[in-house]
Structures are given as C-alpha cells and as structure tokens.
C-alpha cells in the first residue's frame, strides 16, 4: 500500500474537468485508489466522490493506492496533480 500527501496547486482545484481527468487516470489501474481530505474519504475512481471532496486550490489531499500496480498509479496521479492537470494556466 502506498500513501502520499499532496497539495492541490492548480487554480480551480478539483473542479469538473480536473476531477474527470483524475478519475479517468485512476480507472486505468488495477489498484484501489482512495482520496482523503479533511477526514472525508472517497473512491478515486468515482467522479462524484472526487467532486464532493471539494478540494480547492491549496487543499491537502491524502492519496492511498493499494494493489499490484500501486506504485505506478501513485506516481501517475501525483504527476497529474503536479502538472496542474495540464490546464495551461
């Protein structure tokens, strides 16, 4: 199991487009993906789950991946967040 805490740095936070990119990416991996913010835990493969986290810019997100490809999944998700979801701000 991998756990990592990461800051949401893009301007609009986990809004619709960013959330959908994150979910689409998470779904590509076998591993379970869990996101937590302020004590609220969501399935990283659920768009509604990700949206209800209401993770705006500056919020800290705890990502947990668990499964055969947990390392790759974690690396890809952190990379997407750090690339600001390729939104070209």
């Amino acid at each position, binding site marked *: 199991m991998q756990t990592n805490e990461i800051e949401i740095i893009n301007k609009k936070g986990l809004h619709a*487009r960013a*959330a*959908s990119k994150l979910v689409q990416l998470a779904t590509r991996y076998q591993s379970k993906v869990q996101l937590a913010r302020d004590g609220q835990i969501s*399935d990283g493969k*659920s768009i509604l789950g990700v949206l*209800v986290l209401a993770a705006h*810019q500056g919020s800290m997100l705890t990502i947990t991946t668990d499964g055969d490809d947990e390392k790759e999944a974690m690396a890809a998700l952190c990379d997407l967040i750090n690339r600001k979801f390729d939104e070209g701000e």
Partner: protein
Amino acid sequence: MKKNTYKGTPISPGIGTGKVLLLEKQTLSVYRLTLQDDQIEPEVRRLQEALEKTRSQLHVLKDQLSAKLGEGHSYIIDVQIMMLDDNLLLGNTVDTIRRDKVNAEWALNETATKLTNVFDSMKDTYLRERGADVEDVINRVQANLAQLNVHRVTEMDEDVIVLAYQLSPSDIVEMHESSLVGFVTEIGGKTSHTAIIARSLETPAVTGISEINGIKSGQTIIVDGYEGLVILEPTATQIREYENKKRYYEEHANQLISIKDKPAITKDGRKLTIQANIELPEDLDSAIRSGAQGIGIYRSEFLYLSNPDALPTEDEHFAVYRVVAERVYPHSAIIRTADLGAEKFTPVMGMHNEPNPALGLRGVRFCIKKREMFKTQLRALLRASTFGRLKIMFPMVSGLNELREAKSALEEAKEELRVMKVDFNENIAVGIMVEVPSAAMTADLLAGEVDFFSIGTNDLIQYLLAVDRNNDHLAYLYDPIHPGVIRIMKYVVDKAHEAGVKVGICGEMASDPQYLLILLGLGLDELSMNPVSIPLIKQMVRSLRYKDAREILEHCLTLSTAQEINEYLLEKTNQFFPSGFFASRGPML
C-alpha cells in the same frame, strides 16, 4: 431605465431579439411505492434501462457539442456521463431499492437529495455550482423513468429567447440545435457550465432576473448580454437602437480590438490609462482581451456574498488576489476593500436591514466596525502584493478621520505579518474612492495622506444630487453632468494634482462616449470601465486633442444647466467624431 427594462447579470455577451418561450420549472412529482419481493429486480433493471437511455442521449449531445466547438468543451457532458456510471449514484440507488423495497424514482430521489445537500454546503462557489450538473443528470434519468420527452424545447421555427428558472449546459446545447437566440435565467452564475457553454456558442445570456410581471410566451423580448439587460415588448425606438448596437458590435468589434494594444494617447501627447472594472477572477480574460491597462477597480464583495454561512478566510482572499496580481502584471490592479452593508450582507455578518441603507453602515464604516474581518482581507492583500502590482482602495470614506482609521487597521495588518515573518510590499499604494461629497470637498486634506484617488461617480452623483438612481420617478434628475457634479469633480482633480496625487474615475460615466470630452478636459489620469467599452474609448482618446478638451471643459463650466451642457457636448462630440465614427452608434451612445 425604462419600465419595460429589467437588469440582471450578463453571463454571455451578444444581443438577441426573439419571441419569449417560458419554460416552467420542471418538477416531476415523485411518489413512494412499496414493492413486492418479486418486483424488486425488475425495478433495478428499469433503473438501469433509464440510465442506459440517458447515457445514449448524453452521447448524442456530446457529439453535437464537439461538432460545434471541438473536443474542448465536451468534457462537461463527459463528466455527466461519468456520473451515470458512478457507484455513488447507481450503487446507492440500487441499494435503496433493494433495502427499502421502493420504486426507482423514490430511491433515485433519495440519492439526489443526499448528493445535492453535499454540494450545497460547499464553500467554493465554483465547486458548489457543480451540484447543478449532478441535478441535471438525475433529472434526465427521472424523466426517462417517467418516459417523458427530455427535450424541453422542440421544433421552433422562429427565433426564440428562453426564460427559465435555471438551464443546464445540455439544455443549451439541445436548444441551440433549433432557433435559440438568447436566454434569461433566474439562477446560474458567471462560472456555471451553462454560462461557459453559452459563451462558446455565442448565445447572449443574462441571469439574476427573477420576476417579469405579466410576461407571456410569444411576446417580443431583447436580451442584452453585454450589459445584462432584458427588454420586454420593446418600443420601435428600442428595437432600432438594439439593431444598431448589434450591427455596431459585429462591424466594429474586430476593428476596435485591433487597437487594443496601442496606448491611449491624445494627438497632442497626453497619455491616459484605460483600465477595467471587474468583479470576478473570471472577468480577467475579457479585461485582458479588450486591452485594459490594468484593473481600476476589483469589487471584492463577491467572495463575501458567495457563502452565506461563513466569512471568507485569509487564504481564500489571498488565492483570488494573487491570481489578479499575476494575470494583470506588469499593469497594476486596484482592489477595493469590501463595500458591504447597504443591501449587501450575509447572515454571518450580523447585519440588519436598515431604514436608509444608502446612508447606513456600509463600505469602510462597516469594515472599521468589523475590524477582524477587515484585517483578514488586508493581510491577504498584503501577502498577494508580492505577486504583482496591487493597490488598496477604501470605499465610502467621508473624511480624514475615517481614512486614518482604515490606515491604522492596515498598519496593524502589516505588523501582524511582520511578526509572522511573512513577505509583503511595504510600500503598497493606498487610495480612496471619492464618492461621498464631504470627501470630495476635503480632497485637499485627504490628498496629503493617500497615493491615489478614484472618483466613484455612481455614488458621488447620487449623494450630491440626493437622487436614488434606481428610483424611476427621479430618473430625470439623475444627471452625470449637472453643473454641480462637474464643479466637484474639477475640485477633486485640481486638489489631487496640486498634491501630486493621480486621479481616476470608475463609475459608469467613464464608459460613456458622450462624457469623454469632459473627463479628458478635467485632466483625469485614469479611466476605468466595463471591459466591453475599452476599445471604443481608447480609439476616441487617440483621435482627440487634450487642448481642445480643456477648452470645451472651460466652456461647460460657464453654462448653467445640465441641458445646456448636454447640447453643447453633443454638438462638440459630433464635430470631433463626424459621420462614420458612430455611424452605427456605439454600444453606449
């Protein structure tokens, strides 16, 4: 404003004229039915079929949208398709059907209530508005369960303007297929997906219009998505005016945009700074696109009003001001501190309705009373000041004591940051809105203790003439060029310049071509206006001489009534801008 004209918030620019189509707020009544055991699995299948049907409808919409706008915007529908597959929606609803032995409609309604409650309680406006996307998806599934036609508007053979409580992005896409030329809603913000789609499809739209007395489907209506106006049963003159305005935009918009990067400099070399008035970070795009040389006023109330339950935190303020500072750089952005009070407050501020709000606890008076709230905003502004060129402006200052009081709060905020070793610009410029007549008449005293003035003509005129500008009975008295107004503005500009302080203007008057000669002649340094007006005003400045404007102002000061001044100005404006310049009459004429 004429009686048949209603003011809302513009969310998508353009002008549309068409027939009213009223869409009733769609409320499907949902009943609870108790199922027999052998009915449960068929009910689950019925839900799945409705979801499947919704999915294929959304795919059709997505294709239509991609065909029109490319893939860039279809993500909005993609997200809705993903929601359909989401376990939080499907799984929970199926669980409820099985556990409570209830019909799919009832179970789905329970899921919907839970989800929308979560979205409604979100602080971030942008994220909160995503609740509307969830609701839209669920309504579509409900309609499919009820086997209703989801198409709310079908087969229109004439231009139609839809009026509805709320519209979803998919509604807009569907209606755009037929003859939608504009829409008006009661709710839906500038940042809603509906607004984004409307702007992409270039469909004029206005929101925040709650009630139009006696309106019926089939009546003629104009939607002005530039200024947020809706005109019901327009007169022949109004129709002509809007046809001209529309033509003006179509013909001249591109030409004007081409001068956007040129300086606003008169033929004899006087340089003006033309800035934009904005309210939301989203407005930065149009400000920059129109060639604004900075932000003359960023109205910061939005952050406070978007969440009724809590005051914005320092970090929330900071995030916004930082974006403004960075995007506008190397130009400057003037952030006006909260002008709350009057009718603008939320329950959490502990305010009450006042008998005379315009003269009540508002602007800097309110901030001084709510010192901690005020300092939260000031600390955020100071922190953001290292990311660009921010300036701080206090609203509703009535005299020196109030200015000093506000500045002492600023000093405290600075000291708090120093203690915490947080970086900020020690020399951040501080100015005031000159909008209370007593401040204008003590401009000489105030000028010694500020870095800049910005004349807020909307309120200054209202207070000086004792005319409520929203009172229809008094509209004839609200005159921006009443000799009293010109004299007081001249006094402010002269006293500021004697003290070496720059003066701007940020009221609606600044965007009106009719008043440009006067504003230029007064010697104002900065004009701040609605982004839409910037290219035209800049073009006008570039074709005038400062020397001529000064002479015209001198002559205006010898005239005794607003009417005489108006006539003289009109004559002069026509002389400087003969046929052609306003051939199709500009948007603000």
